[in-house]
Each structure stands twice: as structure tokens, then as C-alpha cells.
């Protein structure tokens, strides 16, 4: 994504441009670096996914052997979760949140740069695991498989652990930075209940990170000690417990799912109102639903452990059902926002609508898993693989492309090509369904995940082949995007400050914004300050004037 395209004032030599990027503390440059880094790992993780799907296309072992396969699925997950979706949403938030708040930068610009460079360091450690025997543990790192060096002697596992700890601290610093920025750096007049929804979801995401990451960081260090120094935290022979690791892992791991998807909810809640030319329907309910998802996210972790027989099932089943409610509220709010609107189907909106259409499937098949007796059947099968990919591909990836098309003009001063964007959308839309829908049926029929082969007699060949075709379509859909970015960056800048007729403050400055972000700010009286400025008198609904100072006191 156009690293070298954001103008940096006066023309500079190549060398000083590089130094400037490497040493920058500007939230926009750091955001762009996050986004570019994340996209590189999106493609890296995608190649691993293609290797998995190629092996599974037909029965038999043709492409890789078991030992290699066992590294692929874990590394695919680690890269997509920790090195793609998290840095990507962090990068977008880094660029956009200070702008939406009307701030000049993040609260701690140098800690912001530290977070980014720690991401790079963690990524190097994780990738280097490939050179040291890999990490055939899955991303869940279940003990005793990961702690017993008789079974996993390779140094790659240690490198993965260290890399994840470094990434964890990077995200903890980032979360603190976002929380302080959101509470302390808002422009005058922007009360908490006037923040754009993307800022709200970034805030809740940061709180989730702050509560869950220290737990997993401690757990990863415990595994490292068990592996290398005979710690015995998770060894039953030494008084430890293998189930304890699963509690630690999923106490982080389930909030992590919301860490990945809440920023996506935020993006969709920005795009739908703008392209419907209406305010977000039920703003307060939306804020409450976001907070409720965040809180309930910490009460459901053991639904990943139903099959252990070591957890109190009704408690976790109940809260797992309950968390479907705030998510459902969001769906109805999005649909009600579109109701009666003037819908424009530019690429960002296309992706947003695709998100609603497909994320619904990931919500519904997830609700099945809350039914404990059904979970006993499909836990650890392709049903769950399908569920997580409907959430993370149809959910997070669609929202990420929506936001890249939406905010690219702000970052680069140029709009991406609409025709290429629409071609990409349809390839991705069809590919996603082709890749992941058949996996429901495979799971129902008992095909477990994390196996490199299946019997030709099982009747799974056709469905697996379809899934592989879909995976290649998803990979192929990235090509028009790369081409799109390439040709767009070669065009001259248009400098449109507000190409989509936007609502929030990032559109109230130039594209790209100056290093100090704003020369002047519009008056902020609602969650749509720019809209209020452009269309005076219509934004506040039935009681337009005068806007009382009721909510600004929070800051």
C-alpha cells in the first residue's frame, strides 16, 4: 500500500525518505507501515493456506508429507491472526482513530513506533521458526505436546513462543496508547457518545487486549519454562495440569476473536451510514452492544473446551448463547440504517453488504456450537473450521477490504479503481463460499481438522475439491487488488478531501492529511460533525437546535 507515496513536505532524497520512514513517530506513517506489513503476511499466510488446500484436494499424500503439513496449519493460523488481521486493524486504527477524534497524533507517539517495531521483531522470530524445525503444535500450542521436548524437540517452537510474547507486549503497549488517546485526545465537543463507531470498537478492542494479553503472555512464558527448564506448570506428574493451559489460552483466545472482529464491526458501521446517507440507526444501542460483546467475551472461553469433560457445561453454554444477542442487535441496526436510505454501491459499500450477507452464516453456524451435545459431534471438525473462516474471512477480511477501499483516498490522495474493485469483490465473494461452505457438510460427516489425508471411501473427495477451488479463487482475488493499488499509485493525486461525502472528521482535512492533521475543525455536536457542517440543520433529527452540552462532560 503505497509506502513511499504519502508526501513528506519538501522533496527529499531517497536516503532521507527512508530514514524518515524508519524513524517516524507520525501515527499516519506508522499506520501505513502496519498495513503494508500486515498485507505481506496476508499473502504469506495465504500461501500456507493454499499448500493445505492443495494437499487436501484429493485423498492421499501428494504435495507435502505429514511432518510439513503439521507445521502448515499452525503457522497459517498464527500468521493470519497475529501477523495479518491484528496488525491490519491496528494499522487502520492507527491512521484513522486520531483523525476521527480530531487529534494531532496518538497520545504516546514514540510508544506507537515501539509497538510497530516490536511487531516486526516478533514477526521475524516467528518466521525464523521455519528454519529451526518449524512449530508443529497448531496455533493453540496445547500441552503437553508443546511442553514435552520428546515430542516437539525443535527450536522452532521456542521461537514461536518468543515471537508471540513480543507481539503480545507490542499489542499491550498499543492498547494502552489507544485507550489514553481515546480518553484524553478528543477534540473539544467530542463527548464519548459522539465518537464515530470505529473509535468505540477500537476502544473496546483495546480494553479486551489489555485484559487478555497479559494472561496469554504469562501462559506462553510458562510453556517456555516447562520446555526448557522443567517448570512443571502443565505436567500432571509434577502437580501441574494440562487443562490449565487450555483455560489460560482460551481466556485470551475467545476475547481474541472479538479483538479481530470488533474493528470490523466498527468499519462496517462507518461505511453503511455514509453510503446510505443516513445516521447509524440506534447509535446508543450499538455502543451498548459493543460493550456487551466485550464483557460477555470474557465469560464464554470454555466453550472451546466442552469436549474435555473438565468444565461446567451449562454456564458456558448459557453465555455463549447470550453473546449472540448483542451481535444480532448489530445486524438489525445495520439493516435499519439502510432502510429508506439512498444506497450507493461503491466498492466499500459492496464489501460492507457482502460482510453482512456472509458474516450472518458465521454467526448462525457458531450458535449451533453453543448446543453442547451438538458440539460433542462437530468440535474439532471442519464445521468449526468453516465457522472460524466465515467469521474471519467473510467477516474480518471483507471488512478490511471495505476499509482499504474506503480510506485509501484519504491515505494516498487517490481513489482505487472501482471496476477492478468490483471484479475483486465478486471473485472473493464466490471463492469464500466455495471454500468454506462445503466444510460444514464435511464437519457434519465427521471429518476432523488438522489431518493431512482422508479416506477416498469417506465420500469427502468432492467437497474437499470444491473447497480447494474456492481457496484458489480467494488467493486469485488478491491479484486485481495488487494491480489496482499499483496502477492507482502511478496516477497523479486528486487530493479530494471528502470523496465519499463522509460524516466523520478524517474527511474534514486534506487527502493525505498534513503531519499535524488539521488546520481547523468543524464544530462537533453529534457523531457526524462533518455532515452537520455540510448539511446544517438536518442532522439532529426532530430536535435540531440548540445542541445542549450533555455528553461532552465525560472528557
Amino acid at each position: 500500500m503505497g509506502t513511499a507515496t504519502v508526501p513528506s513536505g519538501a522533496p527529499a532524497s531517497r536516503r532521507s525518505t527512508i530514514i524518515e520512514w524508519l524513524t517516524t513517530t507520525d501515527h499516519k506513517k506508522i499506520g501505513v507501515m502496519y498495513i503494508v506489513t500486515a498485507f505481506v503476511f496476508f499473502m504469506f499466510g495465504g500461501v500456507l493456506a493454499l499448500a493445505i488446500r492443495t494437499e487436501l484436494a484429493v485423498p492421499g499424500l501428494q504435495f507435502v508429507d505429514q511432518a510439513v503439513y503439521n507445521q502448515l496449519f499452525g503457522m497459517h493460523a498464527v500468521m493470519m491472526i497475529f501477523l495479518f488481521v491484528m496488525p491490519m486493524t491496528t494499522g487502520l486504527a492507527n491512521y484513522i482513530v486520531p483523525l476521527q477524534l480530531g487529534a494531532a497524533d496518538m497520545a504516546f507517539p514514540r510508544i506507537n513506533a515501539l509497538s510497530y517495531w516490536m511487531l516486526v521483531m516478533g514477526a521475524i522470530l516467528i518466521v525464523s521458526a521455519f528454519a529451526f524445525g518449524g512449530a508443529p503444535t497448531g496455533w493453540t500450542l496445547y500441552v503437553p505436546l508443546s511442553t514435552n521436548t520428546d515430542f516437539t524437540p525443535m527450536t522452532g517452537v521456542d521461537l514461536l513462543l518468543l515471537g508471540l510474547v513480543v507481539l503480545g507486549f507490542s499489542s499491550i503497549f498499543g492498547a494502552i496508547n489507544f485507550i489514553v488517546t481515546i480518553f484524553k485526545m478528543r477534540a473539544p465537543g467530542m463527548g464519548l457518545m459522539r465518537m464515530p463507531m470505529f473509535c468505540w470498537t477500537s476502544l473496546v478492542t483495546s480494553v479486551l487486549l489489555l485484559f487478555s494479553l497479559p494472561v496469554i503472555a504469562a501462559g506462553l512464558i510458562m510453556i517456555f519454562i516447562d520446555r526448557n527448564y522443567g517448570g512443571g506448570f502443565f505436567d500432571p506428574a509434577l502437580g501441574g495440569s494440562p487443562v490449565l493451559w487450555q483455560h489460560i489460552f482460551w481466556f485470551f483466545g475467545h476475547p481474541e476473536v472479538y479483538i479481530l472482529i470488533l474493528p470490523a464491526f466498527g468499519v462496517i458501521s462507518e461505511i453503511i451510514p455514509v453510503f446510505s446517507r443516513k445516521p447509524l440507526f440506534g447509535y446508543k444501542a450499538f455502543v451498548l452492544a459493543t460493550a456487551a460483546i466485550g464483557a460477555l467475551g470474557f465469560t464464554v472461553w470454555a466453550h472451546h473446551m466442552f469436549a474435555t469433560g473438565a468444565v461446567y457445561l451449562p454456564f458456558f453454554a448459557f453465555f455463549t448463547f447470550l453473546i449472540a444477542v448483542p451481535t444480532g442487535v448489530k445486524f438489525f441496526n445495520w439493516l435499519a440504517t439502510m432502510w429508506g436510505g439512498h444506497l450507493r454501491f461503491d466498492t466499500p459499500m459492496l464489501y460492507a453488504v457482502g460482510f453482512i450477507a456472509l458474516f450472518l452464516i458465521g454467526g448462525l453456524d457458531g450458535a449451533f456450537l453453543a448446543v453442547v451435545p451438538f458440539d460433542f459431534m462437530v468440535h474439532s471438525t471442519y464445521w468449526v473450521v468453516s465457522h472460524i473462516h466465515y467469521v474471519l474471512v467473510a467477516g474480518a477480511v471483507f471488512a478490511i477490504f471495505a476499509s482499504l477501499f474506503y480510506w485509501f483516498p484519504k491515505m494516498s490522495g487517490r481513489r482505487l479503481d472501482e471496476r477492478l474493485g468490483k471484479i475483486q469483490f465478486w471473485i472473493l465473494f464466490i471463492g469464500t463460499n466455495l471454500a468454506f461452505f462445503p466444510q460444514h457438510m464435511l464437519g457434519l460427516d465427521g471429518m476432523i481438522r488438522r489431518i493431512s489425508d482422508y479416506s477416498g471411501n469417506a465420500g469427502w473427495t468432492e467437497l474437499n475439491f470444491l473447497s480447494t477451488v474456492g481457496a484458489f479463487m480467494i488467493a486469485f482475488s488478491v491479484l486485481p487488488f495488487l494491480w489496482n493499488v499499483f496502477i492507482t499509485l502511478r496516477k497523479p493525486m486528486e487530493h479530494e478531501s471528502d470523496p465519499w461525502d463522509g460524516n466523520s472528521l478524517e474527511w474534514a482535512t486534506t487527502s493525505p492529511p498534513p503531519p499535524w492533521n488539521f488546520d481547523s475543525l468543524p464544530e462537533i455536536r453529534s457523531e457526524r460533525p462533518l455532515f452537520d457542517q455540510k448539511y446544517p440543520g438536518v442532522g439532529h433529527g426532530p430536535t435540531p437546535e440548540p445542541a445542549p452540552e450533555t455528553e461532552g462532560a465525560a472528557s
Partner: protein
Amino acid sequence: MVGLIIAACGYEDSANNTGDTEGPGLFGETANGLGFPHEVVTTEGIASAGLYLPIFLIAVVIFIIVEGLLLFLILRYRKRSSGADLPEQTHGNNLLEVIWTAIPMVTVFVLFVVSTNVLMNDVQARSDEHGAVVDVQAFRFGWIFDYQDPASGDPEAGTYEPVGITISGGGREGAPEMTLPVGEPVLIRLTAADVIHSWYVPSFFFKRDAIPGRVTEFELTIEQPGVYGGQCAEFCGLAHGDMFFSVNALAADEYDAWVAEQTGGALTAEANSEATNAEAATDAEATDESAEKAA
């Protein structure tokens, strides 16, 4: 949508198709016992699987409402002119929002009550009399089935006398077979020797993790005689994908005959089981080694 219906039909067909173990279809059967027959054959599994259709129907209704509404909105409100006029700026509607919060709330509460009822009363029901008691130990990459005498010991305290039948094996070729009686509750006591495994038989609609240092008990009542494939369902290392086993469900009298044959009468029980054990263990080790070599 079509796919969802196909999924449901596939499921329904095979659920009704309990007796038929022949003939491959999209969800077809296998001859070698390592693939997965799709019918559900245990009392607990049938109760569990019975939850699928109602939940599936609720999901279909929600799917149709939301996707239908989305499609309607796209067609009805897509902007045709490029005028600068604004639609009506509606900010919310409390009554509507309460309604669409309350309906999902009631729905999930009903689902919770119904599914927890099945879980507590059908799946986790316990009986005092067992047709068989088997101690299962999972190891990388195989299984040991150690039969206990359900009529012996103190079921209250969970102590049984060994029958003297121990079957073990592992890997793709040496997959062990667990013989069980039909029509009586069977008690399985599950643990693992090294890492976490999971005992999974799709035809039983059930899996349970085997965890080192911990014994997990569960019961199942098989209703149909037959051979049912099983597989380790928790990633356990290199040859995880080859960690098969099967369950051979026999009518009660045939099961008794099998037990008698295995023990060779009470006198030679010990010798016999040791022989079986030693042979199987060698098999398992061989598989284990060859798997490691493959790495």
C-alpha cells in the same frame, strides 16, 4: 442457501438410514471401517442429533429473514439519480430496538433450556448397571482398551476387577478394535499416556478428550450392531492423522461369546491376554517407529 438445505438433507438421509451400511453416496459408507458411516447409533447420540433439525430450522428462518431483508433493501433503496437530496434522517426507534433485542433473547433462552435438558438427562445420564466397562488409554499414536468386569468390584467407588482382555494397537494398519455389547449402557473410562488425544466416533455423535493425569468417564448405549470407525480428534503430533480405531458392536449373546473366547475360560485368561497385549503392543511400536522415520 441451497447448500444449507443439501447439508440438512444429507444429514437427515443418513440419520434415517440406520441399517444400511452399503453403497457409497455423497455421504457414503466405507468398507474398511476407517472412514465414517454417518448414521447415529447410540441412544445418547440419537438424542443429541435430534437437536440438529430444530436448530437448523431456526437458523434457516433467521437466514431467510436477514438475507431477504438485505436483498429487499438493496433493490428497493439503491440510488438511481445523482441528486444531492438527503433521505429522512432517522436516528433510531426504541420500541423496534427493544423488540429485536427481546426476540433473539427469548430464542437463545429456549435453545439453552432445550439443549441443556438433553445434555443433562440424555447424554450425561448415568446408570448403575453396565454391559461392559472399558478403560481406554490413548498414546502416540494408538489406543489400549483394557476390559473390566462390570459385575465385580464396587461400582459405587468406581473400582472393578480386570477381565483379562487388553487390546491395543495403533497407526493406520494396526488400528485396534473395541468390541462392545449392544443394548446395554457401556462405561468408558478414558485417559492418555503422553499428550492430549480425543476419542471420537462420528456414528456415536460424540467425542471426549483423553487427558494425561486425568480419568474422564462417560456412558454410551449402542442400539445397532455393526462396525463403527473412530479417530483421534485432538492434534497429538506427527501421525495424529493415522490414529484410528473402530468399535465392533455385537448383540449381547455374541458379546458374551467374544468375551469367553478372548479369556479362553477363566483358567487361561491371564496368559491369553498377555499374548494379545504383547502382540498388539509390538504392532503399535512398529507403527510408531515407522511414523517417526517418515518425519
